[in-house]
């Protein structure tokens, strides 16, 4: 019961702030509401028993990505002129709603193979670490590729903004 209530509250918060991000004219406030959307999603991870991911969500999205976005907003000084719509204002809305309707129809029609829900959820941190870094689970190579990707992104960002 508590889980259901928290799901609906967090879902409402996430959808509401996501809508506000898209619809608000003030870019700075949009970024702040994006942060509240990230928090709501971290809460949803908690309701799904993903404790480690919820913390990483706050750490990465709120602590790093949101701060970078706010920094970019400060540097580009476009908050006052706001975030205008492009020509796709109506077309985009139609396309998005159509896609949403199609997805919901498919999700409702699909017979999902839901596993036995009586299992006791354990803390996920140790399990995630073991599965990411033991050769048997097959995630070691993706893990290393992700590290290379991060390095490349850091170097790319430096090269792009470095003043000549």
């Amino acid at each position, binding site marked *: 019961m508590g889980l259901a209530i928290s799901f609906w509250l967090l879902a409402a918060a996430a959808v509401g702030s996501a809508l506000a991000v898209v619809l608000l004219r003030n870019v700075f406030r949009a970024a702040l509401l994006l942060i509240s959307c990230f928090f709501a999603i971290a809460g949803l991870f908690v309701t799904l028993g993903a404790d480690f991911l919820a913390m990483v969500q*706050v750490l990465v999205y*709120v602590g790093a990505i949101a701060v970078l976005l706010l920094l970019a907003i400060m540097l580009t000084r476009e908050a006052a002129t706001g975030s205008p719509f492009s020509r796709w204002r109506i077309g985009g809305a139609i396309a998005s709603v159509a896609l949403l309707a199609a997805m919901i129809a498919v999700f409702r029609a699909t017979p999902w193979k839901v596993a036995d829900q009586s299992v006791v959820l354990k803390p996920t941190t140790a399990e995630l670490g073991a599965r990411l870094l033991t050769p048997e689970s097959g995630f070691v190579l993706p893990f290393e590729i992700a590290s290379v990707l991060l390095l490349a992104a850091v170097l790319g960002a430096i090269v792009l903004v470095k003043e000549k």
Partner: protein
Amino acid sequence: MDWLRWIIFVVIILAFALSFVMAFILLERRIVGKFQLRPGPNRVGPMGMLQPVADAVKILLKEDITPAKGDRWVHRLAPIVAFAPALLVFAVVPFQGKGPGLGFSLDQPAALADLNVGVLYIVAVSSISVIGMIMAGWASNNKYSLLGAMRAIAQMVSYEVPLVLSIVGIVIASGSLSLNSIVEAQSIPFILLQPLGFLIYFLGATAEINRAPFDLLEAESEIVASYHTEYSGMRFAMFFLGEYAYALGVSAIVSVLFLGGYKFPFGLLPQSFIWFLAKIFLVFFLMLWVRSTLPRVRIDQMMAFAWKFLLPLSLVNLLLVAAEGVSTIGFGWAAVGINVILAIAFVVIWANRFYRVKGVTVG
């Protein structure tokens, strides 16, 4: 009875945090006074003990001003966003462990929630406060506020990296992310086992909470009062109390991670929350000592210190701890000897190299 336990702990944490913040404000002024050979505030109440109360009353009576062209709602919300994480940190801090202690014994650790991702929780929560600073700087519609906020971002983002890397060493040595398990793992306090990690964490945390010598957010001569320039009354008080609450939080976390929390060193006396509180005061005194001894650094020096000094050292520390973990040395007294010697050597060598690059003094 879970909810009863939660209510009791919320009350305990609030009382603990607020009374300690008051005590810290008074102690800071008195102790810094002593360092500077002057008495400090000593008029209100016995030995000036009521000075924080007088300050609070004064500040609450002042007018609460919002800049005319600022973003009103963001301006009002900012102090709350900056202050709340300071209290949230204490949710996972264990005050006393399970089992018999001094005076009474407990059937479970005395913490609001002994999360199994406690360390991650602390790192995540403390990264929120920077958002409050950005909000304050932006919503004030004042260039000094904005510049202060930009400095805050640069400072917090840079010091977060060595800070987290130094905590990873602790996590490797104790094999857990839960703060209570970390305390229980410290038969030898981690300050002895990882002196380099302690140094990096302490300096990084001092910078993260904007205390001297890294308090250039509040460098009056350069940027007025940074992001609190446009704040007054109650909202200014929230920023001000928030800073001390963060100092309290950092003291508590250093006590838990490095000084053995509620344990008496080497288990000579039974565990008790009294040792934990004593360690908090010890760490806070260390901060005051640093503050009264060192001059403020410049912004470029500060960034260089994070990226060129602390970051390489924290990587070295991590490598060292990991190597000891997988080798036969383990985390015993042999490792203590090796690590203390290596820590001194690394700090001396790297500080020399850091100070003199190409014969000129750099930051």
